[in-house]
């Protein structure tokens, strides 16, 4: 999902940068609020960021024959919402842009927009919808992470198709989808499963924090 340094015209860099900056500032305000309300939120926040760090460093092979990496953006979304996840994605993307030449500083805004905003927002909608249908938290989190991962790559395809429409923007979008999203499907399943495992351990260790954050109800915490 990383758009490489310089591979986006300056105008689009600026547009994505402005949109992402607004969401990131809002996310920082939300982090301040969440950590002021309860001390327990901070370790969970660090854990969500660390999970993203690990998952986005693992480049895995896919059945399409090329490699890509999961994003880890579903976990933080469920606990803190999409805006906070956008802040966490900034840390990961900066690390990779500066030290690994993956992504870039000029394309940072676009990459935050796909990995930190579109993916998490779509995942959040899925989470809210499944939870309102009384589906258990681990199953819901699987689909949240799956959708957040996949939509991140769809968003990258949209960004590239908008910047490089070619003769037919629709066809270009499909071509980018073929490169990014198809490869990502099995990896998104893997990410969903991994997110479910770490969630199971978090709920086992500290169900009380999840209740405080409104992730699960007290009955669900008690059943554990």
């Amino acid at each position, binding site marked *: 999902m*990383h*758009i*490489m*340094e*310089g*591979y986006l*015209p*300056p105008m689009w860099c600026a547009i994505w940068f402005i949109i992402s900056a607004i969401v990131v500032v809002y996310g920082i305000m939300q982090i301040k609020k969440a950590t002021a309300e309860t001390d327990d939120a901070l*370790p*969970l926040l*660090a*854990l969500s*960021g*660390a*999970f993203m*760090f*690990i*998952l986005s*460093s*693992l*480049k*895995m*092979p*896919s*059945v*399409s*024959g*090329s*490699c*890509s990496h999961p994003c880890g953006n579903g976990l933080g979304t469920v606990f803190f919402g999409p805006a906070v996840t956008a802040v966490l994605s900034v840390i990961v993307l900066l*690390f*990779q*842009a*500066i*030290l*690994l*030449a*993956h992504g870039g*500083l*000029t394309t940072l805004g676009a990459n935050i927009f796909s990995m930190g905003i579109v993916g998490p927002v779509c995942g959040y909608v899925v989470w809210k919808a499944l939870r309102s249908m009384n589906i258990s938290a681990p199953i819901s989190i699987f689909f949240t992470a799956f959708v957040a991962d996949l939509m991140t790559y769809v968003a*990258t395809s949209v960004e590239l198709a908008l910047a*490089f429409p*070619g003769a037919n923007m629709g066809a*270009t979008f499909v*071509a*980018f989808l073929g*490169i*990014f999203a198809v490869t*990502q499907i*099995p990896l998104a399943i*893997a990410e969903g*499963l*991994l997110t*479910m*495992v770490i969630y*199971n*351990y978090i709920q*086992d*260790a*500290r169900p009380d924090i999840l209740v405080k954050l409104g992730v699960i109800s007290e009955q669900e915490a008690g059943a554990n």
Partner: protein
Amino acid sequence: MDWKNIGILIIVAILIVAPLIIFNGHGEDDGYFGGSDDQGGQYIEQNNPNYKVWAAPLWEPPSGEIESLLFCLQAAIGAIIIGFIFGYWYGGKKTKNQQ
């Protein structure tokens, strides 16, 4: 609970190993197992020959070895934080139960 998680991890392992078996014998030389990020860049270059890449990374890892070092570092930072926090939580819970 633990068996369920181990079962899920085995499924993840199968998902990752399957492509290696399907495309066994192929490698980077015949276009397999490359990164999709690079493919995206190549597609842009091929279809937009007039586009000038206007920025270059400030620094690039000088070799694949250095790159893998930094990727390992990234994963290690994440892993150490996760391990520390779970240890902190479970340790705290154990002390609480003993009191």
